């Protein structure tokens, strides 16, 4: 059971990491438009110019 001494702190680090990633994804506007991107992928071509807000 000694592995728990490693795993428990690791889980905390992981949780904070996930939180940080989610924070970034919200800030970069990924949840502002939940419908458009799902369709956008079907019209794939070189629409290279995007503004991330």
């Amino acid at each position, binding site marked *: *059971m000694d592995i728990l001494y490693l795993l428990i*702190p690791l889980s*905390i680090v992981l949780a904070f990491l996930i*939180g940080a990633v989610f924070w970034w994804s919200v800030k970069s506007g990924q949840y502002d438009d939940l419908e458009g991107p799902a369709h956008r992928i079907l019209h794939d071509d070189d629409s290279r110019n995007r503004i991330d807000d």
Partner: protein
Amino acid sequence: MRGMSAQPAAVPANAAHCYHCGLPVPDGARFALVLGGESRALCCAGCEAVARAIVGAGLESYYRKRDRFPDSPREALPEVVRDLAVFDRPEVQGGFVSVSGEHEREAALILEGITCPACVWLNETHLSRLPGVSAVHINYATRRARVRWDARATSLSKILRAVRAIGYRAYPYDAQALEESRRRESRSMLLRLAVAGLGMMQVMMYAVPGYLAAEGEIGADIAALMRWASFALTLPVVLYSALPFFSGALRDLRAGRPGMDVPVALGVAGAFLASAAATFTGKGEVYFESVAMFVFFLLGGRYLEMRARHKAADYLEFLSRALPATANRLVNFPLCLNTESVSAAALSVGDYVLVHPGETFPVDGLLEQGDTEADESLLTGESTAVEKSEGAAVIGGSVNRGNPAVVRVERVGEHTALSSLVRLMERAAHERPRLQEITDRVAGRFVTFVLAAAAAAALVWLAIDPARALPIAVAVLVVTCPCALSLATPMVLAVAAATLARNGLIVTRGHAIETLARATHFVFDKTGTLTAGRPGVVRVQTFGATTRKEALGLAAALERGSEHPLGRAIVEAAGWSSTPATRLRSLAGQGMQGEVEGRRLRIGRKAFALEAAPQAIAPAAEGPASATEIWLAGESGPIAVFALADAVRADARAAVGELRERGKEVVLLSGDREDAVRTVAAETGIAEFRAGLTPEQKQAFVKTLQSRGAVVAMVGDGVNDAPVLAQAQVSVAMASGTALAQAAADMVLISHRLESLVRGVRLCVRALRVVRQNLYWAFAYNVIALPLACAGYVTPWLAAVGMSASSLAVVLNALRVRGKGASGEWRTGTTVTGDG
């Protein structure tokens, strides 16, 4: 918008319909486009120009990708691609263009005409290929676009023009503070919810072994480690996610009115501090998992509530930005037609503006020159365009669908009908309805009671078993749920008001929804309410071999161009007739005379028309005495008699029928003659009516009804029957356009359809039912949960689950008011959704 078809050519485009916009191709139209080796028929020059622009840019795959037709550009297109240069001026750009870098500019735009995801693709691709444009992003959900360009290589007007060329309309959009704050609120709420969710899951992982393990199975140091881990993960949940509850509680306490945030904040803080103390000292129980779970579920309910609130506010925002920012002012009108582009705010009363087809009228005004059609769907919910002839009033925010029009400015800015509408709706939103005031007061008392109960329970348990005092006090604080009172009721009312508005019924007073739902008597005015308020052909009696259609055709040929309401009614009834009349002569007060297909005809009063054939004997006309008779006669004698009367609205009978079915008493009050009123009552199926009443008598009648305990809903035209409207508990005015501002009613039926009223009643009843259900539920839940918690049967985590489940149930129940189909967004204002 949803459910995009997998088939590339999901939109059928056969020969009879325009390949671009899907409207029928008129006979004789010769607009076409060769695409993929096939000739495609198009309906108009506008569509042809747009389709050519799309194909010319190499974007023809749009036609395979789309799953919906775009809005038709109609003939409007070549006209409107002018005067965009005004947007290149720095002083105009101030509000919506941001400068980034030396030459780089970025603008926020509203895109109109986006109907399916392929439109987004088409616009993005088209714009990003323009020289000088460095980036484009379109948000499909909000129809907002952001464009970045190099000021040396292109200009904003070129970009706007490019959007118009492919059949869409882009307007600069002043990124308002409201929008920005809303986006921030939505983002931070999502983040708080995520942090709480993440913390809850992880803390639960540490807690579950403690529930399952037998005594001594987990080593003391592992247990301590898990406590510390729980503490570390709950800390952000309490400090960040639960912050709105703490600040809300603080605000409530400062105002001296405890709301539901107070017990929540106390419960969270108490449980967390006690658990933290236990973690530091190593003695006592920890409740971190309860804290995290409680915060998460509460935030979940708040998040749903916020989304519903934003959706409801969308409609208001949509209305308030409907007036265009610029206008074409005619500099020296009667003398020449030179225009200058000015900001709409710079217009003043008496100016003349030129409105091209497809453009939005920037102000309320009178049509000075140019017969046209206006799409007033924004203000009335009615998507059929309304004919406008010279002298007619046009409403700012409606769209010119016909010809170029010169409008004399009558009202600008704040004073326009559209602004009044927005103000009325805002007033309703800010007024605290009685229902909510009551629930707020109850909630305040309830919370005080809960705080007292928690303190009492803690004191009692201190005497019995000091170790259990704190968890029980926390459980009491947490388990109780006033959410039905303080969260769900305002949400139900806001959602209901927005759904009603989309349906053509504007709520202008806070109490209206509740009172309309409780109304027992519906009192209708006759003229302009149950009837259309203007004459229509109710009966045609023909003589000889003439058919009804022929008679109407001949009459319409004579009356075409007539300004007289009776003449217009005949033209309207005939529909479109191609027979031209020659040698037309109008005799004031008598009628019209002219030649149609070589026959000399007269139409008008009986004596006047029959002069056409002096020797003929006039047959007796049969028909209701209340109707006006118009005679049509030729040289060989009378051809037909048209009976014109103020016709009953087509949906009046069905509306009255449904109200009666719902057990409402329907009464007709009118100042008109008894026989006219009797006819209307019979046609609509109203049993009880009073004729020949003055406004004071109407008011007295309503008063008598009320003294017998009736809740009266009065439906009138809003201007002439103000005293009765004021007397009734809830009043609905049939008003639109210019009369809107004067309408002193609790609700305004801008759709002019009685069907909307009945739908509205249905929706209000449903909203009230949901509010009641929530209150019953909250009452039953608290009556059971509170004693159990005081008695110590509820652990803090069970209390958190119970309270969260209860508030979620209440919020989800409140969302039902919106009904299916009503949650859809609107594109151009023509979409009227909502199943009532």
